[in-house]
């Protein structure tokens, strides 16, 4: 009964989303203000219906109802309860449902937060969100229904993909999707502004907290994915430039540009049409990412053929959403004039460089990700694009970006002269050079050419971002949350640069074959292989090794990496053992049984690798702090009437 109830709830949600879209967009357009009253109830009703549907599917998972095809394919009676719930987003259909649930949650949040917005504008925003939700609901019901029944039911399920049976990956999709979906809000604000044909500083102030919040979630989501890849895939890498990672990274890059461009639009009334375009692009890439990651439709054009209905629907949906928004942009953006100008050397110019470089970076990633697909579609043969392409091209745009960040943060709005901050700039640069060299030549040795550059830039970014808050603190001037958040996020970026530099330059990696009792060394550490024993879990069995790690004769850790064989899907997974010691990440992965008691082992020492994810967390916290600035919540209705371009100098 529950699956049918869930399906019925989804159909009702579709109808309510249609109502929300129609009344929200047509109401203001036709001047029927009474229609606006229907929008918020539709939002609430849709959220309740979507929650009901998700609840029904979770209940089917928890009660092991293998008559539901999706449950039978992604769960098993031996699967622990936690993963039975997380199996909801274990494959395409449920992921879409999760996407819709999160969109409903964001929409409710926007509806609650829109009390201060002009009613027509708020209705348009909710209307656009309704269109997005309608499209996804229709897609789910038409091609990817998670409630389809099996007749006869399966005696037991096929189990959740074993590599997904991991705490970090279980919570990764919801957080990542919260980020993806959050950009729908910025998209909706952009479309609403274009529909109104008006965009001012108040608009930017309304849009900023939503965008920054979505950005913070996406940052966390990407970091979690990278963390998972690091310890679950067993290779010890934290970023592989594979299409799935790129799919989440592209909206992040463009979203980062959007966050900065919005700042200029708010403070100076500039970059208006550019900001709109970025808002559309960020969400377009988020949608692309959703389809790339779960449905596999864009991983290879061949998968289009695996289910042509799905492929064609996705293409049609992207044409309506992205094509529609871009057409609206082509039509309405010319109306938005940016009145003020700025000088080279003013903060605006640095943010312009920031945007240009981020877009170049996103474009190179996009080109590298799409090239194999396009070559495939046009039958130009198989193209494979990997780190040899991505690493240098990405650095090419990132290095200038990082250097300009340190300079730009000392600059002022509007005025181009850096004279006032010249001394500070010089101090921070010299201090960064000293500290960076100390790190490279004092703590670690044997660096690459880029090592001192990375260390210098990392330290410089941190020092530069701290400069203004520290000055304010010394003069006992209040540091607004927005500035505090920016400082935290930029410091996080500095930490990330430092961590990446150290990891890339000083990682020690050995693949060794060892018999029981043998010892190998890596860096300052000695590893003794104490043999393997059988292990058994709730739905898998396997072997676990015991490796004793010592440093200078003193015990550091006893590591127990495992290789697991999951019963139902017969899949092997590698469970890496990781230990932190003095900032060094010691990683041991169990390889193959070489016979006669010998096993291959992968031993790695990665200095500061944990700081990569810590840095991402710091950046996300910075975003959260900035998004919570009271200034955004205090935006009053009356300010909406201030004409564009005049409020810039006041902010």
């Amino acid at each position, binding site marked *: 009964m529950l699956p049918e109830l869930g399906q019925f709830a989804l159909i009702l949600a579709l109808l309510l989303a249609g109502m929300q879209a129609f009344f929200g967009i047509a109401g203001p357009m036709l001047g029927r203000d009474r229609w606006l009253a229907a929008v918020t109830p539709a939002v609430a009703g849709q959220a309740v219906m979507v929650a009901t549907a998700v609840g029904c599917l979770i209940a089917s998972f928890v009660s092991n109802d293998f008559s539901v*095809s999706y449950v*039978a*394919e992604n769960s098993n009676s031996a699967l622990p309860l936690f993963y039975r719930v997380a199996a909801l987003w274990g494959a395409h259909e449920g992921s879409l449902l999760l996407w819709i649930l999160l969109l409903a949650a964001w929409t409710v949040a926007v509806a609650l937060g829109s009390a201060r917005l002009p009613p027509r504008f708020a209705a348009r925003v909710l209307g656009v969100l309704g269109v997005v939700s309608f499209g996804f609901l229709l897609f789910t019901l038409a091609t990817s229904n998670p409630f389809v029944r*099996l007749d006869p039911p*399966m*005696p037991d399920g*096929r189990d959740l993909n074993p590599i997904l049976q991991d705490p970090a990956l279980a919570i990764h999709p919801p957080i990542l999707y919260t980020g993806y979906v959050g950009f729908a809000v910025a998209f909706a604000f952009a479309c609403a502004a274009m529909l109104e044909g008006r965009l001012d500083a108040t608009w930017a102030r309304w849009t900023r907290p939503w965008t920054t919040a979505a950005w913070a979630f996406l940052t966390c989501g990407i970091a979690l994915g990278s963390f998972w890849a690091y310890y679950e895939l067993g290779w010890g890498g934290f970023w592989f430039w594979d299409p799935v990672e790129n799919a989440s990274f592209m909206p992040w890059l463009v979203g980062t540009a959007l966050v900065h461009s919005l700042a200029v639009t708010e403070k100076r009334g500039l970059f208006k*049409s550019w900001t709109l*375009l970025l808002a*559309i*692009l960020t969400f377009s890439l988020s949608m692309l990412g959703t389809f790339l990651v779960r449905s596999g439709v864009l991983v290879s*054009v*061949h998968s*289009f*053929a*695996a289910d*042509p209905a799905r*492929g*064609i629907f996705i*293409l049609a949906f*992207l*044409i309506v959403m*992205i*094509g529609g928004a*871009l*057409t609206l*942009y*082509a039509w309405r*953006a*010319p109306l938005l004039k940016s009145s003020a100008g700025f000088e080279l050397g003013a903060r605006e110019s640095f943010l312009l460089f920031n945007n240009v470089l981020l877009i170049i970076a996103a474009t190179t990633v996009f080109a590298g990700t799409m090239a194999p*697909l*396009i070559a*495939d*579609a*046009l*039958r130009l043969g198989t193209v494979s694009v990997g780190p040899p392409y991505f690493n240098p091209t990405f650095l090419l745009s990132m290095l200038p970006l990082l250097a300009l960040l340190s300079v730009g943060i000392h600059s002022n709005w509007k005025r181009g002269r850096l004279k006032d901050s010249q001394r500070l700039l010089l101090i921070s640069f010299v201090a960064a050079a000293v500290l960076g060299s100390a790190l490279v030549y004092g703590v670690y040795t044997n660096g690459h050419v880029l090592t001192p550059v990375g260390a210098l830039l990392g330290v410089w970014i941190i020092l530069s971002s701290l400069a203004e808050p520290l000055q304010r603190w010394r003069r006992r001037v209040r540091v607004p949350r927005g500035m505090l958040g920016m400082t935290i996020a930029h410091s996080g970026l500095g930490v990330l640069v430092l961590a990446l530099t150290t990891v890339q330059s000083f990682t020690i990696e050995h693949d060794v074959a060892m018999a029981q009792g043998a010892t190998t060394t890596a860096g300052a550490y000695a590893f003794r292989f104490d043999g393997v024993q059988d292990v058994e879990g709730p739905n898998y069995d396997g072997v676990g090794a015991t490796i004793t790690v010592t440093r200078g004769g003193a015990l550091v850790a006893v590591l127990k990496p495992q290789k697991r064989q999951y019963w*139902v899907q*017969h899949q092997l997974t590698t469970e890496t053992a990781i230990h932190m010691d003095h900032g060094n990440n010691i990683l041991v992965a169990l390889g193959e049984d070489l016979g006669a008691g010998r096993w291959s082992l992968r031993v790695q020492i990665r200095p500061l690798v944990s700081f990569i994810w810590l840095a991402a967390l710091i950046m996300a916290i910075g975003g959260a702090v900035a998004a919570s600035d009271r200034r955004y919540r205090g935006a009053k209705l009356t300010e909406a009437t201030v004409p564009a371009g005049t409020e810039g100098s006041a902010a």
Partner: protein
Amino acid sequence: MNRFALPVALFAALVVVLAIGIKHSPQKGMIVSPLIGKPAPQFSLPSLGDPAHAVTSADLKGRWYLLNVWGTWCVECRAEHQMLIEARDTHAVPLIGLDWKDDDARAHEWLAQLGNPYETVAIDHSGSTAVDFGVYGAPETFLINAQGIVVYKYVGPLTRDVWTQEILPRLPAHAAGKS
């Protein structure tokens, strides 16, 4: 054209490429296998009906057959089962099952319940034969000719379209008989 229309133009170009991709993509579900045109891997596996008896690639040589990789744990296999029964009833080509990493009792129960489309079923407990065949996931179907050469491979549940458009046209007139 004004510069604001540039994004939508670029997007349109991308859509065209993807649309061409959909239109031109190869036959449904077909993943090009390096085995096509090459001899099928050798195997000798116990038969599901009579474990003492072996099903071997050598014995199968000399006539066309359809090797269908399946398992009772595989949801899509259930979906294609009816199609396999229909295929058997046309007597166009004998079906040989490869029961992949499965439980024998469950396999017997499955065939008793849903009907047995196969002439013989080989049991691949270790999965090593499936590995030799480069099986991604069940179900997969290989068409093998009288010389033991892999002629065609299909990934995913067999459909009527694949059967009539891909498999039947590749068969010689006498494929059903034992040459």
